[in-house]
């Protein structure tokens, strides 16, 4: 073997050996971020781009109100650099996961514990004393703000500020990604507004009161809930009252979340001549809603079809 051939083989072998290694180093450099919901996962990915591996704890078809705290969630959180939570008492279980994960990066009070709800205008904050006789009320207000695309700027700003605390070197990239994402939202918002503009002021009945941010954004009015009180199933008496109200108000749409008792929702809709549909309560909870924009797209299109 000549010296030249030996060098060529050695060079090729070194290149072949080092190439996967280089990729591995690149993957190791990525931030590891865990979010409580798939909505926040999608919004976080919009900010981080390929600078982070983002994973959600709740599966898309799970109600994020009351998640089973599995130790497998703690595995996700164990090595995370940041944990992004919805806040407003939607995902208090995330703190239990953080405790069990033994990861000081993400415990409440640490820089990597990011609450996406900071400073947003919260709807349905109780103005009077509340207790559990009113059902599963949220004393600090309705926590489902991520269903409103108009909240994306504020939420992504919170995510950006939190991530800059742990990775200030990526600030410029995060800001660039965020602006590109908001430009897409801006484009889509015009389309969504025009789709629902003809139905402004239309009454809508919901199964569980988690759609108020979405409905308010597009000028639709929530006039009733299938649940008698939040989290309390409907009684026969309540259903009779709701059916009467829907007939009086000529309600055309009853919307429900994927984990609801949809048979009951359909029955009520049939009795009143309204249409019933399941909307995507979280990113990925309905087929074809893999991203935040897809989710809003699906919800707006479904609402527009129901209200025709």
């Amino acid at each position, binding site marked *: 073997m000549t010296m030249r051939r030996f060098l060529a083989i050695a060079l090729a072998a070194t290149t072949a050996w080092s190439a996967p290694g280089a990729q591995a180093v690149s993957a190791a450099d990525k*931030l590891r971020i865990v979010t409580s919901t798939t909505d926040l996962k999608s919004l976080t990915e919009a900010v981080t781009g390929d600078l982070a591996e983002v994973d959600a704890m709740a599966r898309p078809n799970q109600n994020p109100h009351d998640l089973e705290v599995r130790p497998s969630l703690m*595995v996700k959180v*164990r*090595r995370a650099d940041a944990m992004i939570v919805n*806040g407003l008492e939607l995902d208090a279980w995330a703190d239990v996961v953080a405790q069990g994960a033994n990861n000081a990066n993400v415990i409440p009070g*640490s820089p990597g514990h990011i609450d996406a709800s900071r400073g947003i205008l919260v709807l349905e904050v109780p103005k009077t004393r509340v207790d559990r006789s009113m059902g599963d009320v949220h004393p600090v207000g309705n926590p489902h703000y991520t269903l409103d695309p*108009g909240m994306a700027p504020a939420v992504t700003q919170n995510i950006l*500020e939190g991530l800059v605390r742990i990775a200030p070197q990526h600030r410029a990239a995060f800001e660039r990604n965020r602006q590109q994402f908001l430009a897409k939202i801006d484009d889509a918002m015009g389309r969504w507004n025009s789709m629902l503009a003809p139905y402004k002021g239309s009454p809508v009945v919901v199964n569980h009161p988690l759609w108020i941010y979405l409905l308010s954004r597009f000028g639709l009015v929530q006039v009733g809930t299938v649940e008698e009180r939040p989290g309390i199933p409907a009684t026969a008496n309540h259903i009779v009252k709701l059916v009467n109200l829907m007939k009086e108000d000529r309600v055309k749409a009853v919307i429900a979340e994927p984990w609801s008792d949809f048979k009951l929702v359909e029955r009520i809709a049939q009795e009143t001549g309204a249409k019933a549909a399941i909307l995507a309560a979280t990113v990925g909870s309905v087929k074809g809603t893999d991203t935040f924009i897809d989710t809003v797209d699906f919800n707006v299109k479904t609402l527009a079809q129901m209200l025709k």
Partner: protein
Amino acid sequence: MRAFVATAVVLSLLAVTAPVRAQDAETLRREMEQMRKQFEAMQEQYKKALDSMAERLERIETRQEPAAAAPVPSQPAAAAPPPTLPAAVTTAQPAPGGMPSPMDLIRPRQPFALYERRGPGQLLFDVGITGDFVGNLTQHNVQKNQGGSFPGLENLFFPREVEVSFFGQIDPYARAEVRIEASQDSRDGDLNLTLAEGNLTLMALPYGTQLKMGKMRNRFGYLNEIHAHDWPFTDNPNVLQQFFGTDGLVESGFEATWVPPLPFYLQLLGGVFNGQNDVAFGRNQISNPLATGRVRTFFDFDEWGALQLGASVAAGQTPQQKNSTIIGWDAKYKFTPGGWQHAAFSVIGEYLMSLRDVVVTDSEGNDQTRFRNSQGFYVYAGLQPFNHGELSKWLLGFRYDRTQYPAASGTEWAWQPFLTYNPSEFLRFRLGYKQTTRSQCCSYLDFQDNGGSAKQVSEYFLQATFVMGAHPAHPF
């Protein structure tokens, strides 16, 4: 300012007191009305002054943001967000991923999120109250011999555990929980008020470690760390009652955990405690401690459920200063179909082995030390097969128990079907029947007084449980 207002009001009242005596009722009413208006005007001024000061303070705080903070990018017009509060204070931190340096570890950190979501007047910790009431009906002879599942409380409806709990972050590095519990332990109706738990956990320790110290329910096996109101059945399984006593293993000391950074969940735990358990570890000396250990792992089958496995050990000395070791294995499987709020099916089982030296008196009246190896287990299965509607509130459960006595010869076994009704997440009722059989009676159980008539025990249970206020999410 507040003192000035108060003084002004008092002086005004004194000034008008004397002439008022001389005036008629109408004049008095008019003057009182005038004073009320003046006072309201002063209140209004005072409020405005306070608001103005708060505003100035907020402006000053906003100006003090570090230069590194991001400028807020302009928002797209169509997607304009609702008004937001001032941006969060940001501070550059070391890049993640790398090991923290000694300086990183000792440097104080800012309590970034401590006051998040806390408005004026809100507590900085959570408060919850739980009430757990149990009634049981059994034979008269069982009551006489105190041979039921609630010894000394047979044929009574009593508060088993009414608990006030406080829990939350102490600071960015530690959290604490304090549980004060009242319970009825005897027939006379007197309540026993105790500190059920009071401990703090250092959560910001490096390398995936945590340290818990204080009084706590030990993490031995699956059930021991869970308070009675959260058990999936009414009474303590026979094996745990025989091996640890009615209250379980509750100790004061230290417990450290480590979760290594592995692709699967593994928790390793080691503890050192006084040893205050009357039944198994009563040496009560931290210098001659009760040592505990536990390893726990978890398999997530996604839509097909999840399985948790654990092994625990506790080694110390009995009140008679004899060696005592208890080893336990536990498993829990839970199947929660996609989109369900509760498990459709769950199985829990624990197997314990007690290895201890016991003092026995031979036929000549001499005390001798003998080694005893006793074993016991329980298996529970719960079925809640409906996801929606009224039927989804009902759970059918069954438990089978079998255990030897750790300090005497003999075995007992029991079976127990029960029905649980949950009107809501915060209220629960349970009805059950338990049949216990004992192979023989033994002196330390005090069943011999009535000719061994506690060998066959039939019991009916009624349980009512409520939760008010905050309650932490349940672990798996």
